[in-house]
């Protein structure tokens, strides 16, 4: 029969987390706790040069003096940083191995995720650097990229092979002192991706990384550094899935983008860390610092689809330093059950005629809380700066919350800043209208949510758009009331 509110709720009970399996791989895991010795041990494990070890130690010193930020609209039990193990690598990982040598369990895990290396290899125009826990396991398309002079490799390798680039840029956009989690990441990051696009080169394929947390109780500290040299172009995709665990897992990544004069970087993320079960137990704490620097005439575009994690704290930002540079932020954040998200962006206009666009779509269901927090800052010398912000919220049921915290600081009279915001609710009448046309309720919700998110979904590369739409559907199952 047709649905009433009550029945809708029951009928749409949360689907168990799809990727909630745990692959039993022998791991090489450090004892829990964090001190200088652990930091040194991580550095040693990665066979890093001394300058890197010292860099980490300095970050650790800074971190020790810092406190966790408390201003976000999220409530959770603070992680005990001495109860986390800061290094975990699948034992079988060895970058020199061919696919045939890869642990069959690992391949099986990829298969379940639908991202098997075999499949990925066949995917045209997508180079994949797969990160399981903390060590890169397989890197493909490296050769094709090398022909163009593009460097795409795990950051641990880049530290050894391209120290001049890493030294020059790491920590320039997100300094070690930036915030509590960035400092922590700087001290203990285990791996991540490094990418360099040479002058005038258009990267011929979408670069892609999949991250995953696998080991129980293991913190994940990814570090990504992406440099687009003058007049170059790159589109980078980052996708995350994580298996289900009962205890909360900490994820504190740092992503730094550098777009030199005339360069363009498109950075797209689909984030699907384990959100916790429907009682709000478990789930990933996702405290991420992502920031890009735009030099003259450069452009950085962040697109994110955030469906996972128990707690999200994330503000991909742009520093529009160069004149005529452009920053964009397109976001879909979905929260269901007991998830909490505090996410948004910072657009810092420093150069003249800099422009920024913010489109944020928040979808809240269940008992979740979804906050947009954004800062548009125009400095006194940024003549002719312009910003357009649009924040839309879609609510399902009566127990969730949507919040908008837009901050504007304009120190230049020529600045033009526009802000629009809407809040709407999926109604029983919309569902019935769809039902009457022969569209079942689940499909109707997907249709309405996809329509609501369309402006952002359209910004995703084709490869991601389909996956993102599927994710939206999965994350919202069990949500309408």
């Amino acid at each position, binding site marked *: 029969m047709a649905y009433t509110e009550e029945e809708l709720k029951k009928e749409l009970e949360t689907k168990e987390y799809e990727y909630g399996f745990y692959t039993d791989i022998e791991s090489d895991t450090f004892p829990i706790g964090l001190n200088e010795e652990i930091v040194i041990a991580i550095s040693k494990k990665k066979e890093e040069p001394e300058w890197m070890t010292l860099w980490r130690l300095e970050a650790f010193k800074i971190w020790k003096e810092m406190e966790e930020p408390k201003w976000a609209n999220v409530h959770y039990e603070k992680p005990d940083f001495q109860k986390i193990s800061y290094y975990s690598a699948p034992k079988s990982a060895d970058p020199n191995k061919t696919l045939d040598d890869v642990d069959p369990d690992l391949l099986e895990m990829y298969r379940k995720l639908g991202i098997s290396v075999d499949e990925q290899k066949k995917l045209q125009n997508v180079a994949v650097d797969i990160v399981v826990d903390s060590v890169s396991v397989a890197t493909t398309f490296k050769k094709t990229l090398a022909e163009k002079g593009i460097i795409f490799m795990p950051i641990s390798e880049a530290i050894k092979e391209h120290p001049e680039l890493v030294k020059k840029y790491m920590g320039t956009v997100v300094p070690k002192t930036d915030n509590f989690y960035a400092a922590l990441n700087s001290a203990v990051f285990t791996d991540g991706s490094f990418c360099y696009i040479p002058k005038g080169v258009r990267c011929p394929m979408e670069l892609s990384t999949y991250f995953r947390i696998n080991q129980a109780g293991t913190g994940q500290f990814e570090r990504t550094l992406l440099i687009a040299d003058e007049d170059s172009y790159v589109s980078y995709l980052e996708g995350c899935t994580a298996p289900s665990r009962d205890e909360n897992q900490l994820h504190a990544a740092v992503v730094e983008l550098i777009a030199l004069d005339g360069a363009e970087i498109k950075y797209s993320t689909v984030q699907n860390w384990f959100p916790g079960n429907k009682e709000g137990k478990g789930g990933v704490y996702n405290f991420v610092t992502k920031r890009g620097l735009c030099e003259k005439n450069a452009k950085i575009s962040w697109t994110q689809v955030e469906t996972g994690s128990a707690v999200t704290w994330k503000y991909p930002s742009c520093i529009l330093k160069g004149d005529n540079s452009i920053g964009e932020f397109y976001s879909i954040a979905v929260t269901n059950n007991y998830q909490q998200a505090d996410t948004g962006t910072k657009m810092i206009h420093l150069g003249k005629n800099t422009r920024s666009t913010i489109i944020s779509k928040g979808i809240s269901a269940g008992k979740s809380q979804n906050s947009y927090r954004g800062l548009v800052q125009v400095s006194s010398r940024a003549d002719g700066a312009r910003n357009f912000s649009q924040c839309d919220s879609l609510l399902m049921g009566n127990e969730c919350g949507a919040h908008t915290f837009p901050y504007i600081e304009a120190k230049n009279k020529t600045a033009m800043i526009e802000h629009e915001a809407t809040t709407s609710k999926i109604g029983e009448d919309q569902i019935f*209208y769809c*039902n009457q*046309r*022969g569209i079942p309720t689940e499909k109707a919700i997907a249709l309405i949510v996809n329509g*609501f998110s369309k402006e952002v979904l359209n910004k995703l590369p084709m490869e991601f758009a389909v996956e993102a739409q599927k994710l939206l559907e999965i994350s919202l199952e069990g949500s309408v009331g």
Partner: protein
Amino acid sequence: MLKIKDLHASVDDKEILRGINLEVKAGEVHAIMGPNGSGKSTLASVIAGNERFEVTQGSIELSGEDLEEVSPEERAHKGVFLSFQYPVEIPGVSVTNFMKTAINESRKAKGLEDMPAKDMLKLIREKSELLEIDRKFLSRSLNEGFSGGEKKRNEIFQMAMLEPKIAILDETDSGLDIDALRIVASGVNKLKSKDNAVILITHYQRLLEYIVPDFVHVLHNGKIVKSGGKELALELEEKGYDWLKQETAV
């Protein structure tokens, strides 16, 4: 085709339909008229399976099948169509995308593959011409920013696309100017055949000049108090509903 027997329905424990009996055969056009609050729209919603209303007694049969346990989407798959009095907006979902989803869901329920894009386009072209709809209109978000007339025309366009067995048009004439009314009515007339049936719900006789009913029923206080041919509509127009109210008051 549609057989309604002693139908009682209520919302929030308030009885609105109090024993409706109605039989609609293939090829027929029925008009249901009546004053505000007589239960016309409720009847339409209940036939379509809107569970905001509780059926407390009686039955609805479609081609011999009792619809009691049939969900609204299954009713749609079986050929029930409701042109809404107040069509809802779905931002970001184009008319085309909405129709594609509706048609393919219906096909899926029947075990058919999705309609090939080529056939879909052909169907859209054909039906939009029938209703004199500008193709640009079809890429707009469903009902968002549509005028009253555009919304109603869009409802009939959907009816044309879905080719229902029984179409219930709930006050499709309200909000239409005379030109739009003519186009909508001519569309409905072209879609009419000996295999399908139409129920027109209206206040006024105006629509019935364009779509001529075989039967006219007057609904009052949740009951059909009078039935007749098309001339009954004219009589109502002339005398208003008051004479019927007096006639049926006990």
